[in-house]
């Protein structure tokens, strides 16, 4: 198992190199000259040329990329073009906020999605099942920006329960600020998890071993949790892992609506400013975290399904 983990860690290196090369290339070909953007309207061609030289932008593509990789290996992700601040400091702060938001969204999605999916599968074609299917379809189809604004109008403006936007540090302020954005961000994932759980449970609910368990006289709750859910869990865990990875980088709309200072908004702002160091640093950080999440999910398989655990052990032998 340890060897497997180590191997997965080593995979991070080609992933990072590939991701950064791709982003570096894309940024190279997107229109806009950082020197011109920085200097503004009054600068002459000579001013722009001087700044380009100072920033090393005149060096060939390969030289600049190799320089970036060298600095990255030394833990130096560079200085932002737009505000002269250390990129790492800014990203870590933003990434922390995004992790909190994405983590809370996944937590809500799991907390509601799995039980609802299980009950829906057990009570297939009942009113509860039909309502759940309708609501989850609605949540999966609702655009995040619309749902977010609706929640704000109801819970912030009309009822005054939660703040409309922003983030405050410390408990309980942070928790109160987190409710609406986390619920908004979780809506699609929650619906997907509920529907996946239902579908996955329905696949096992008619298996012979379930009938055997019932014949043995086991309690229905034990059958549901130990025999049905455990066997249905693999696709659900996969879905949760993928969703978390997606939410890390894809929460830009929610972050904008709720003025949540996360990494998604930071990347969009950086792209607009052609701030390549900030974009690259964000990609590096997000790639590392996504890899960790995927690794964690893979390891979780082993605990969920003993057959997978035995595969790891067989390989080691």
């Amino acid at each position, binding site marked *: 198992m340890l060897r497997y983990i180590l191997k997965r860690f080593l995979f991070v290196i080609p992933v990072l190199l590939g991701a950064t090369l791709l982003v570096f290339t894309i940024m190279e070909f997107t229109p806009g000259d950082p020197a011109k953007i920085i200097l503004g309207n009054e600068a002459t061609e000579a001013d722009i040329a001087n700044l380009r030289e100072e920033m090393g932008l005149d060096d060939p593509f390969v030289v600049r990329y190799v320089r970036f990789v060298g600095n990255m290996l030394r833990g130096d992700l560079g200085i932002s073009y737009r505000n002269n601040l250390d990129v790492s400091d800014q990203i870590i702060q933003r990434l922390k906020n995004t992790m909190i938001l994405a983590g809370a969204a996944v937590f809500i999605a799991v907390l509601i999605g799995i039980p609802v999916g299980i009950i829906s599968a057990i009570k297939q074609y009942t009113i509860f099942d039909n309502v759940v299917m309708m609501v989850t379809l609605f949540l999966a189809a609702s655009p995040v920006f619309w749902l977010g604004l609706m929640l704000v*109008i109801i819970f912030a403006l009309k009822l005054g329960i939660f703040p409309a936007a922003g983030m405050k540090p410390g408990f309980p302020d942070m928790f109160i600020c987190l409710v609406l954005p986390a619920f908004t961000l979780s809506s699609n994932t929650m619906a997907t998890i509920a529907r996946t759980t239902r579908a996955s449970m329905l696949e096992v609910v008619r298996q012979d071993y379930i009938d055997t368990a019932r014949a043995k006289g086991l309690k229905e709750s034990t059958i549901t949790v130990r025999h049905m859910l455990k066997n249905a869990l693999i696709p659900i865990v996969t879905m949760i892992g993928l969703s978390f990875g997606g939410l890390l980088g894809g929460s830009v709309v929610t972050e904008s609506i709720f003025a949540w200072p996360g990494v998604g908004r930071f990347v969009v702002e950086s792209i607009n400013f052609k701030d390549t160091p900030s974009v690259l640093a964000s990609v590096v950080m997000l790639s590392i975290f996504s890899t960790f999440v995927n690794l964690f999910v893979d390891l979780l398989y082993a605990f969920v399904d003993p057959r997978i655990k035995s595969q790891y052990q067989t390989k080691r032998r």
Partner: protein
Amino acid sequence: MKKVTAMLLAASMVLSLAGCSQKAKEAPAGTGSGNSAAATEAPAADRKVKDEIVFAQSSDLTTMNPYIGTQERAYSLTNHMYDTLLVYDSEMNMSCSLAESYEWVDDLTLQINLVHDVKFHNGDPLTAEDVIFTFEKRAERGSAFKNYIDVPNMQAKDDFTVIVPFTSPHPSFIYQLTDPAFGIVPKKYFESVGEEGFAKAPIGSGPYKLKDYVTGDYYTLERFDDYWGGPAKTKYLTMKIVPEAGQRTIMLETGEIDVAYEIPYVDATKIQDNDDLQFLSTPSMKIVMFYLNTQSATPVNDSRVRQAIEYAIDKEAIVQAVCYGYGSVAYAIVPDSVSEYKEVKEPHVYDLEKAKALMKEAGCEDGFTMELWTSSVQTNTEICQVVQEQLAAINIKAEISVQDANTIDTRIDAGDEFGMELHFYSCNSGHAEYTLSNILPTGMMRNDCRFSNAEYDKTYEEWLVTTDEAKREELLTTMYEIQNQETPVVPLYNEVKILGATKNLDGFKLSRIGAHQYQDAVVYED
């Protein structure tokens, strides 16, 4: 030593000079007329005041370093952290700030006399060396004044007197000293912490000092008790970044913020109808305009066709339909509140018949197809859709191409073909030169219309260095008329800024360049 008062451009300048000497230690900034007035159920003195004012704007500032963060979104914060030598009030009246007075010693020498006993936030005194250092840093960042100011030879006559030598006369330069980007930075502190250190923890001499911040989220300033103009009335000032326009209005309604900037036009009525809020507005320095490609492969290269385009555009309809009436129709490329603004003698007021006649005269009666470029900002795309309809009336088929702003700039630099491009320009110095210098002379960075007119260039160059007021007027008239005749630019309207605030806000001063002032502002708790 020749005192060239004649060189001072207008009577208002002379008045402001006189005013400067008298104003020495009065509160410097935002001395315009009151712009926000709290509902007064009880006398102001009896009312409890909040210790923090929170305002929200849409975008994060690039940096708190004043000479780098030169966008309006930075001004809204940095104008409280730094002082400029001169300032404008809400009505665009210029007065002195850190400069106690200034004097043109001769055509090529400006003497600036600084206010004494000004301290930076770290307690260091503000001296002539800091002013010179600020000029040097701005010149390094590409400011155009380095072309006519001999920056390396600037001198500190004493601790509070700066001598600015010019290589050629430039009487309108003085207006640039009002630009928040000309906030004075502390030389000693800057050199000790370096550029990156200053970007992280900047200090100035303004009424508020930086307390803490999270980029992209919020910036909190704390009152600087030793401020030379007297301490600000509210202890903390916080700027929040709220990108979603509708959310800013909602946060205002829920009381999470006290002032909301950049209110969408569509929300204006909502604020006006809410008894708990007050609606604030001011004309801005921004002119929304079309750049017409004078070197286009289409008939847009013909000045008659360009005039026809302006005659065919119903600007009032755009202001009413797209801006809900919050704007005023423009025929000049600078707002009428700037110095050396001149009314166009024969403006191209909407006249469809005249437009058709000009098209016929140019041999384009059957029309043509051209590209109309714009960025994806919603107001811009709506304007282009209206104009597309209006141009169809003179058989011009305008194909709207929505592109990222950087893409437009790059394609213009690359010489790509286009017919018209929607843009805006803010005259931040409050003097016409700020806009005129960047848009129309041949080869200028923002000459997106690729306009090149030898007579215009010659007149412009002469105007820049002319100190005689009557002669300047004559030259300026020539420039405005060439511009009107050639029509490389079609100004549409002068934008109006609208803001929303709690009814309990008092003493807040609006700024036409977006550097709104909170120094005298308070929010009452009841």
